[in-house]
């Protein structure tokens, strides 16, 4: 078979500089479609923020943050209880979910025999839990709080329990990914020196995985801070005082927003819009922090 070998130089020139196949109509339309897909989401985000910010603009003042909810002075109503409540919930959620989640991930990734039945069951179970609707975690938290003997469930512990259950799978999964990203060579190096599994994990793998774990955890917490559905089921109430402990009655920012946004008074709706911006700032801030950590500290091995 004698093929294209004899191509004359002139025809070669013509072939090479013909129409550009990456610039033809089909390709460009395709690229445009992909590009628009990407920016559709971004546009929605912008529209959402701008729309809400305009609606809430009359209430960008300090009272929004420092005052409790007020029916007497509706134009000064504030989200102090919700903001502090959300921060408390966050803290307690973190205390419950992070150690448990990281411990579970370490077991699955570093200790367990990957093929064991227990490991497989836990793994599939975690994937399932990650997809369980958040409202169902509210139901579970109600039941657990009942078992723990708590009469009144709208307390920090109850809310944090629901949120911790909700983000636990997220934390386990992201922590496992972070651990998996630490190359095996590091572990083998450690084992070859006579280190135990735990020594290897504690001194080598875990420190290397910290940025990844931090990123995943912050993202998990930022999901928790915006949740309302499970708290709705738990019956978080309006309070006019700051939480002082895990047994304090508490409200959360998304709950307060949900509640006020359906109040008849326009003042409340404006305040709810402004509070949405506060919530978004908190969440976007946490996301930004997570991205920063990921981009700055995550080692690419």
């Amino acid at each position, binding site marked *: 078979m004698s093929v294209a070998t004899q191509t004359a130089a002139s025809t070669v*020139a013509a072939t*090479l500089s013909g129409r550009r196949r*990456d610039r033809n109509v089909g390709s460009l339309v395709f690229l445009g479609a992909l590009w628009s897909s990407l920016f559709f989401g971004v546009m929605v985000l912008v529209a959402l923020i701008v729309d809400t910010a305009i609606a809430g603009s009359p209430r960008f003042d300090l009272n929004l943050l420092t005052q409790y909810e007020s029916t007497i002075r509706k134009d000064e109503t504030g989200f102090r209880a919700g903001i502090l409540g959300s921060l408390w919930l966050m803290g307690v959620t973190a205390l419950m979910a992070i150690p448990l989640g990281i411990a579970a991930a370490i077991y699955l990734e570093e200790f367990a025999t990957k093929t064991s039945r227990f490991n497989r069951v836990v793994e599939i179970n975690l994937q399932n839990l990650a997809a369980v609707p958040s409202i169902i975690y509210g139901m579970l938290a109600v039941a657990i709080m009942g078992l723990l003997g708590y009469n009144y469930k709208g307390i920090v512990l109850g809310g944090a329990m629901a949120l911790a259950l909700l983000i636990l799978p997220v934390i386990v999964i992201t922590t496992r990914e972070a651990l998996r990203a630490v190359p095996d060579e590091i572990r083998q190096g450690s084992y070859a020196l006579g280190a135990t599994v735990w020594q290897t994990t504690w001194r080598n793998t875990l420190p290397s995985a910290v940025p990844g774990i931090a990123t995943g955890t912050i993202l998990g917490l930022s999901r928790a801070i915006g949740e309302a559905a499970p708290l709705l089921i738990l019956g978080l109430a309006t309070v006019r005082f700051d939480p002082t402990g895990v047994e304090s009655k508490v409200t959360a920012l998304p709950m307060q927003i949900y509640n006020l946004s359906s109040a008849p008074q326009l003042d409340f709706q404006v305040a709810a819009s402004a509070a949405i911006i506060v919530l978004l700032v908190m969440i976007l801030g946490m996301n930004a922090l997570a991205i920063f950590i990921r981009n700055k500290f995550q080692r690419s091995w």
Partner: protein
Amino acid sequence: MASATSSDTFPQMAALGDVHMSAERRLPDSPVNPVMEARDLNVFYGDFHAVHDVNLSYGRNEITAMIGPSGCGKSTVLRCLNRMNDLVAGAHVEGEVLYHGQDIYQKSVDPIAVRTQIGMVFQKPNPFPKSIYDNIAYGPRVTGMKVDNMDDLVEGALRGAALWDEVKDKLKQSAYGLSGGQQQRLCIARTIATKPDVILMDEPCSALDPIATARVEDLMLELRNDFTIIVVTHNMQQAARVSDRTAFFTARPDETTGNRTGLLVEYDLTSTIFSNPNDKRTEDYISGRFG
């Protein structure tokens, strides 16, 4: 240290492979009618100067081997020859690469058209997750080649790659079912199906076992009749067995940064490079003192 040389101690090691060496070809000292030429080729990955001032010409219907220690830029140079480096983020090429006298790095040149003329076979066999048939038909389809009878074309390509008999009964099965060596020959078949002019091969046998390697080497010698082949290899014996000319590259650390930049040390007829190299570094390398 350094008293007895191993060659004294172990004469047996000198017995080089005699498996494929075809009849000696009489070639002129340098390619008279080069299909491709690299002129003052410099390649950078970001700030890193990977390859420095390479000048090389590749003769028609010859097999040119590029050898040298790891990291000396062989693959980098090879990827410049069909603009595969365009796809590497941060890669940047200076100098000229002439193909039939035309610089393929000119603005007006379509890199995709270049690649239809200059095919490439990779180190690890990389068949597409499609059937054997569709693997072969892929190139003609995407390049919009006019094909009268695709079945004939597929058969021709598979025959050309000495694979037809092994796969003719399972053309519709996934290419992943083939052995590594068959997959590599499938990749070669896939390449010749688009009827390129030049075929670049980057360590085409390094993932294969000895028997599969022998098959592919046989195939290369056969393909030489119809194509121009440029092959990168780690295996010096392979270069000795199949190539007409050999280019030896090495890497030189920069004095200040310590970055190692690849450069062409010596380029000559394969027989000369292996029997009577000009450069001490070439000699050191082919005699196994490093690498």
